[in-house]
Structures are given as structure tokens and as C-alpha cells.
């Protein structure tokens, strides 16, 4: 541990100014993109990507029809954008411009477009983070995950996970900035509240499983406003929060309404929770009140069954799925749940390069492609493992070197804990970690810095704090300790349950 912090300190001392470093890192990222693009160029849409592509095609037709003053094809929209209500259409919306201009875009063009769109969002995010957290954090955020080869590969895919992580870190940066202003007794401006609402709904549209982390961050910001501000400013802050909420709900409504109408039941974000719980933790032989049809994939089997029952009885397929899930889960034992949760945790954290195998041309990779894939795999693990280990360590320890560090530590812990709920409720895929990726490096870097500070000063010299700041710092410490405690406790309890 000492060796690691010393090495990092020596390397950090030799580095150029953060801004210069940032430009070099961005350049490296672009280079990596150009090198990795050929690996994905001829890959057709893989699994869920198919729905995002189709959703984008249908939405492009919607725009086409609207601007040609003809009525849109609502059956096509329902079938391709809402489908079974499994995914929110964030990535479909992002890809729509491509299909508006080139309706029959081929795979290489789709991949190139996705890569470019991802790059533009990344650049915007870097600018945002640099403005609010400084060039140091911006540089870190480019170093990981944007220099991770498998992340770069995923930036050419239609999955919303990497981008949701990028927008999420911008949201966190906005919250830090807002709290900074509130500490100076300045309530958030209307524009900032609007931005917060927009960022939050964007994250949700890109990856609906972020609803928990968004709710948690929303609560944290609200509590901060109530605690840090007084009197008239507090009211202003609450109304600003209301504005953010209204914007969020207004932009969520079109999707919720469309999905609810298409599926004949109330849908807020997605409909996957019951079936994913059943498939992940339930008895798969009982999901269809018995065995499901043997032919189709894990997710489509229960869907077809639910639709058959819905057709016959007139109930909504989503209601049927809820009952199917309850039935399949009724005999679930603690040990089974815990073991499956550990399996999910493994899939979530420990196979970051998995998608390198899937995003490949139909006929498989040639020898050059295989070598490229291998290199991506190795380099990914080399960069990923240290950051992962440091992040996990950082979850167990608290950062107290300054108030800003405390605030960032609290927000990071809270967000990561909210994101880590995923393996407990869903089969974890190897791309889910990318939503938390940028937060990994923030946690890891904070931990390293804290270790360095504690090691190099016998009595750490902290800034002098007055008034609200001092009280805030005092209150945050037990909160940070509690969060670390919760993390450790959950691991221990889940471990014991699995034995």
C-alpha cells in the first residue's frame, strides 16, 4: 500500500499541469477509438442493441412523417419503441438522427455514428466536470474509464450503460457545485435546477436502472438545501427543487404514457423487474406456472407465455408477469438468494472485457481481429483491476482531508451504494459496471490522495472552517462512517447467508 501511494506521488510530481495532461489524455482516447473501431465495424446489432436500432428507425420514421405532414405509423412505433417495455428509448433517441438522414444505414456507419455521438457526449462531460470539479478530476475521468479499451469498444455500441455513467458523473459534479453555493448561503438558480432535472431525466432514459441512484441523489440535494439554507433562501431552493422535479416528470411522461397505453397497464419506467427477479432468483421451471416453452431465449420465453395468458383472459401482460414472478419466487430460500446475488456481483464487477467477444462480425474475427481482441482484453484488465480494488477499499474507509473531499466522498459512496443494488435484483451483465465506472475512479483517486495525506502528515492539517462549513464537516463524518459501515455489513451478511 505504501509502495503504491509513493509511486503515485512520484509519478504525479512529474506530470504536466492538469490541463495539458487532460488534452493528452483526450488525444489518447481518440487514438484508441480509431484503433478499436475496426474491431466493431462489421459487427451487427447484438441482442438488446437490435431494439435500440429498431427504436431509432421507428422514431426516424415518426420525424419523417411529422415533417411531411402525414400521420405516423403508430403500430410501428408501439412495436419498436415500446415493444415489451423492457428498455427506455434513450439510445434509440440518440440514434434517430442517423436514420433520419440515412434510413438504411449499414453496420459500419451505425458503429461510426455511435462512436462519434459517444465522443461528443464525453467531451461535453469533460468540460462540465472540469468546470465544477477541476481539471484534475476531469483528467482522471478521461483516464478511466475513457482509456479502458473495453469501454472504448463499448462506446461503439448502442447500449446506454457507458453514456449513462458519463451523464451521471456530470450530475454528481453539478450537485457538488450546488452544495458549494448553498454553503455560501446561495440558493440554486432556476437555470441550475433546470439543468439538474434535465441531466437526471437523461440518465434515466439512457439506463432505467438508475432510478434508484437518481432518487437518492435527489433526496441528498434536497436535504442539503434544507440543512444549509435558512428562511427565504430555503423556500427558493425548495421551489427550485420543485422545478427540477416538474421538468423530470414532464419529460418522463411521454414515455410512461405511451408504454402504459401500449401495454394496457401502468408503466413508469420499464416492465422488466418482475420477470428479471423471477429469472434471476426464482425457480426457472416455475416461471410459466410450470415450465416455459423450450425454444426461445430466457427473456422471451416468459414474455410469450404472459402474452398468451393476457390474450385469453384480457388482463395486461405486465400484470400476468407480476403473478408469474411471485409464483416462481415463492419458495426462494435465503441461501439460494445469497448465492445467486454473489454470482451477479461477480458478473457485475469481474468481467469488464466480456463484450469484446460479442461485438464481432457475424463470421467471427480474422487473425488480426483475434490479436486485437486479445490486446483489448489484457489492457482492460491491467487498467481495470487496480481501480476496482482501490474503489472497493475506498468504500470501506472515509476521506476527511477537506470539506470538499468529505462532500465528494459522501456523494460517491451514496451513488455507488445505490448503483450496487443492481446485482441484488437483476442478473448482472458485464456492461452494467460502466454506469458506475466514472464514480470508480473518483472514489479510487480520493482514497489514494487520502492515504497520501495521512501518511505524509503526523497531524493532518485541515483547512480552517467556520459556521455552516464547520457544522457540515462535523455532520458528514458520521454519515460517511455509516455508509462505509453499510457497505461492509452488507458484504458480511450476504457472505454469511450464502454459506
Amino acid at each position, binding site marked *: 500500500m505504501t509502495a503504491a501511494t509513493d509511486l503515485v506521488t512520484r509519478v504525479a510530481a512529474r506530470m504536466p499541469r492538469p490541463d495539458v495532461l487532460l488534452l493528452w489524455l483526450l488525444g489518447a482516447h481518440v487514438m484508441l477509438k480509431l484503433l478499436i473501431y475496426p474491431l466493431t465495424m462489421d459487427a451487427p446489432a447484438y441482442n438488446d442493441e437490435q431494439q435500440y436500432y429498431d427504436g431509432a428507425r421507428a422514431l426516424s420514421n415518426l420525424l419523417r412523417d411529422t415533417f411531411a405532414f402525414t400521420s405516423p405509423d403508430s403500430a*410501428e412505433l408501439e412495436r419498436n419503441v415500446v415493444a415489451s417495455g423492457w428498455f427506455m428509448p434513450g439510445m434509440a433517441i440518440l440514434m434517430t438522427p442517423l436514420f433520419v438522414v440515412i434510413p438504411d444505414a449499414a453496420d459500419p456507419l451505425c458503429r461510426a455514428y455511435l462512436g462519434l455521438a459517444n465522443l461528443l457526449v464525453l467531451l461535453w462531460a469533460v468540460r462540465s466536470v472540469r468546470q465544477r470539479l477541476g481539471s484534475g478530476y476531469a483528467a482522471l475521468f478521461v483516464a478511466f474509464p475513457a482509456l479502458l479499451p473495453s469501454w472504448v469498444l463499448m462506446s461503439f455500441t448502442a447500449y446506454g450503460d457507458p453514456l449513462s455513467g458519463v451523464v451521471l458523473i456530470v450530475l454528481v459534479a453539478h450537485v457538488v457545485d450546488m452544495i458549494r453555493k448553498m454553503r455560501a448561503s446561495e440558493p440554486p438558480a432556476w437555470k441550475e435546477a433546470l439543468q439538474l432535472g434535465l441531466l437526471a431525466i437523461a440518465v434515466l432514459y439512457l439506463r432505467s436502472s438508475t432510478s434508484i441512484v437518481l432518487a437518492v441523489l435527489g433526496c441528498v440535494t434536497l436535504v442539503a438545501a434544507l440543512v444549509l439554507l435558512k428562511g427565504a433562501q430555503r423556500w427558493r431552493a425548495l421551489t427550485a427543487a420543485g422545478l427540477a422535479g416538474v421538468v423530470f416528470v414532464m419529460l418522463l411522461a411521454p414515455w410512461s404514457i405511451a408504454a402504459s397505453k401500449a401495454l394496457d397497464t401502468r408503466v413508469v419506467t420499464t416492465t422488466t423487474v418482475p420477470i428479471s427477479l423471477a429469472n434471476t432468483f426464482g425457480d426457472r421451471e416455475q416461471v410459466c406456472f410450470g415450465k416455459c416453452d423450450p425454444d426461445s431465449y430466457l427473456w422471451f420465453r416468459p414474455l410469450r*407465455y404472459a402474452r398468451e395468458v393476457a390474450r385469453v383472459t384480457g388482463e395486461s401482460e405486465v400484470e400476468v408477469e407480476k403473478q408469474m414472478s411471485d409464483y416462481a419466487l415463492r419458495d426462494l430460500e435465503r441461501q439460494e438468494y445469497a448465492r445467486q446475488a454473489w454470482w451477479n456481483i461477480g458478473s457485475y464487477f469481474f468481467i469488464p472485457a466480456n463484450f469484446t467477444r460479442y461485438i464481432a462480425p457475424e463470421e467471427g474475427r480474422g487473425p488480426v481481429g483475434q490479436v486485437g481482441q486479445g490486446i483489448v482484453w489484457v489492457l482492460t484488465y491491467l487498467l481495470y483491476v487496480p481501480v476496482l480494488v482501490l474503489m472497493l477499499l475506498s468504500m470501506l474507509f472515509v476521506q476527511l482531508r477537506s470539506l470538499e473531499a468529505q462532500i465528494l466522498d459522501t456523494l460517491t459512496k451514496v451513488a455507488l451504494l445505490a448503483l450496487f443494488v443492481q446485482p441484488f435484483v437483476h442478473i448482472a451483465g458485464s456492461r452494467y459496471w460502466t454506469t458506475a465506472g466514472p464514480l470508480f475512479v473518483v472514489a479510487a483517486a480520493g482514497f489514494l490522495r487520502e492515504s497520501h495525506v495521512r501518511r505524509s502528515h503526523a497531524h493532518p492539517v485541515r483547512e480552517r472552517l467556520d459556521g455552516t462549513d464547520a457544522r457540515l464537516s462535523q455532520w458528514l463524518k458520521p454519515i460517511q462512517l455509516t455508509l462505509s459501515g453499510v457497505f461492509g455489513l452488507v458484504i458480511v451478511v450476504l457472505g454469511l447467508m450464502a454459506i
Partner: protein
Amino acid sequence: MTGRARRVGTLAGIAVVLAVLLLSHRFGRADPTGDYRPVLVPDGLALGCYPLPGGVTFDFGYQLRRDGDVEVDGEKRRVLFAQYDEMDEDEALAAIVDDFAEAGFVASERPAPPYDAVLRRPGDARADVVRAVVEPLPGVEDDTIVRGTFELDLPVAELASDAPDCDDPSSTKRWDEDS
């Protein structure tokens, strides 16, 4: 960039986007595959692919789960396994018997266990008997939609319709391998 240059640039950008959108119907039409929302094939029994004896159709809510031919004591029989909805066990049995009765089947007074009903048409061969077993599902509640299963032991049926979906196992539930 000066303020004015920025405004001009933004307006130009908006104009370009608008022009593209207004002309977009000339670029062709995108063709989504709809793969993630497969068309739901009709129920095989309702299509009449492998009809029930006597042309019986069921008048209650059911889902076909498995259908196929097996050998029982050297004799080939058709076994049809399905689930019934929104009824209890007695109602389901009565509904099945009633639907067969409409086609002229008569239920035996004392069906041999384990069967809940043994149905015959007067004048039919011995092999044309229909036997039914109705079982409630364990662990369901009063408001659960799917309530139980019924299994019919039937004479073997031939393909009786040339509807294209009759080739689709997801419609007829006649799966090739052991499932």
C-alpha cells in the same frame, strides 16, 4: 466567437436541421425489424391444426402448454397438457366435460382413478376414449389468473389444417425434443 457570430451560427444550424427534417421523407424510409416484439402466433387449437376429437372447442380461458404423441402400453396416444385460468378445479372439470358433451361425448359415472373424467361417444371405438385429469396449481391464490392444469389423454390426431402457423411449434406446442 463574437456574440453576433454565435447567433448567426446557431440560426444557421437550426435552419440546416429544419431543412433536413423537411426533406427527410425523400431519403427513403427506415425499416425496423421488430425482432424484439415477435408476433404472437395464434393458439394451435383455435387454428384447428390438430383438432380435438369431435371438433370440440373449449369455451373457457386456457393456455396450451404441451401437445404430443406418446406410447402407452404399446398403444399410441396423444397427450395434451394445458392450464386453465380464473376458475377453480371443480369449475374447470365441469367446463371440460360440458364442452365435450356438446359434441356428443358422455362422461362415465365413476371414472377410474387417476382420471377425473372419462368421456366416450356412443358407437365410438375403444381407442377413441378421452380421459382428463384436472389439478390445481399449488401455491396460487384466489386472485391468481392461472389456477391449475389439465391433461387430456386423447386419440392420436392428424394435421387437419394447412394454415402456415400449424408448422410453428410455438403455436401447436408440439415440441420435437423432450422438454
